[in-house]
């Protein structure tokens, strides 16, 4: 935790991590209840089934699910990755990979639904993999957020140094110098 002033955001950040878990958990339950969870059942959900008397998904029906998710998932990922990135809890490369995998899985998950219906039923595997990937990364983000803000008091700078800002609110050299003295913040995390 590079800046002790972040301690005041402990409660909202921890509450957000709890809500991330609720969102991820309820998404998993809905995935199983609606799509079935297995590739064959997922394909059946989109293509319809004579045995179950279900019709194939329509383009309108797919869009009805896709559009809110195209807004909500990136918004959630943006918010949580923004906070984790701000406190520099991960190395640049790990952070970039986590961001790319989360957003990639989200996009692949939305696209795969259309793919199963209009391109190839075998893309049900992609739908399943993308959903699993998104769930794992969501849990990862929630865990990171919780780990960072649960340790906020222990990671406080002992000398009380804080970010220096110039007139435009740009951080100056102080945090880098402080980090160099006490090690990178990510090394303090489990």
């Amino acid at each position: 935790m590079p800046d002790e002033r972040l301690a005041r955001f402990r409660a909202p950040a921890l509450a957000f991590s709890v809500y991330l878990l609720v969102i991820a958990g309820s998404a998993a339950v809905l995935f199983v209840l609606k799509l079935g969870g297995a590739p064959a059942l997922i394909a059946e959900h989109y293509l319809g089934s004579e045995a179950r008397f279900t019709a194939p998904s329509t383009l309108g029906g797919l869009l009805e699910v896709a559009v809110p998710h195209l807004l909500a998932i990136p918004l959630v990922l943006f918010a949580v990755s923004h906070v984790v990135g701000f406190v520099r809890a991960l190395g640049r490369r790990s952070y970039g990979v986590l961001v790319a995998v989360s957003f990639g899985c989200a996009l692949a998950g939305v696209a795969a639904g259309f793919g199963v219906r209009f391109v190839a039923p075998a893309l049900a595997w992609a739908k399943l993999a993308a959903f699993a990937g998104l769930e794992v990364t969501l849990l990862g983000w929630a865990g990171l957020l919780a780990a960072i803000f649960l340790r906020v008091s222990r990671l406080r700078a002992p000398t009380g140094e804080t970010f220096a800002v110039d007139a435009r609110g740009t951080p100056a050299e102080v945090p880098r110098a402080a980090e160099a003295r006490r090690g990178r913040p990510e090394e303090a995390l489990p």
Partner: protein
Amino acid sequence: MRFLVYPSAAPRARPPVRAFLLFAALALAGFAAQRVFAGGLTPAGVEAFYLGPDGQEPLAAVALWEELHVGAFVYGFLLFMLGSLAAVAPVAPGLRRVLFFGALAATLADLAAPFIVASAHGAGLVRVGTFVLATAFLAALLVLVGAASAAGRPRA
């Protein structure tokens, strides 16, 4: 977060914060109106919504989980934003803590309440209570942040 942590950036943050608060207030009012129109203010109305008019046509499990999923997104985001803004608002820490943790507890209870109504085959009063508390706490937090934003600079 950057706007909130660097006090010198606060003046630039104020217009979007005020606009966000306006939209949050409208969203909260709309969310509450939806509930009221669906009978959310009386136990009988709540039970009719979740269990059917005669108690024999309960909502499917998928519908309950969908409500939880959407509600968690709405409540989670609102709390995160309002809590972060309240953290830099020049108000008594005790009041801020009561409102934030009250809102957190009430919204979580509100998300769980439909499952209680469905499993108890009644207890509509629980949902009425959680709805009123969640709305009241969030509205109070919103008013607090709005008043602080209108008053001037955030605490450094």
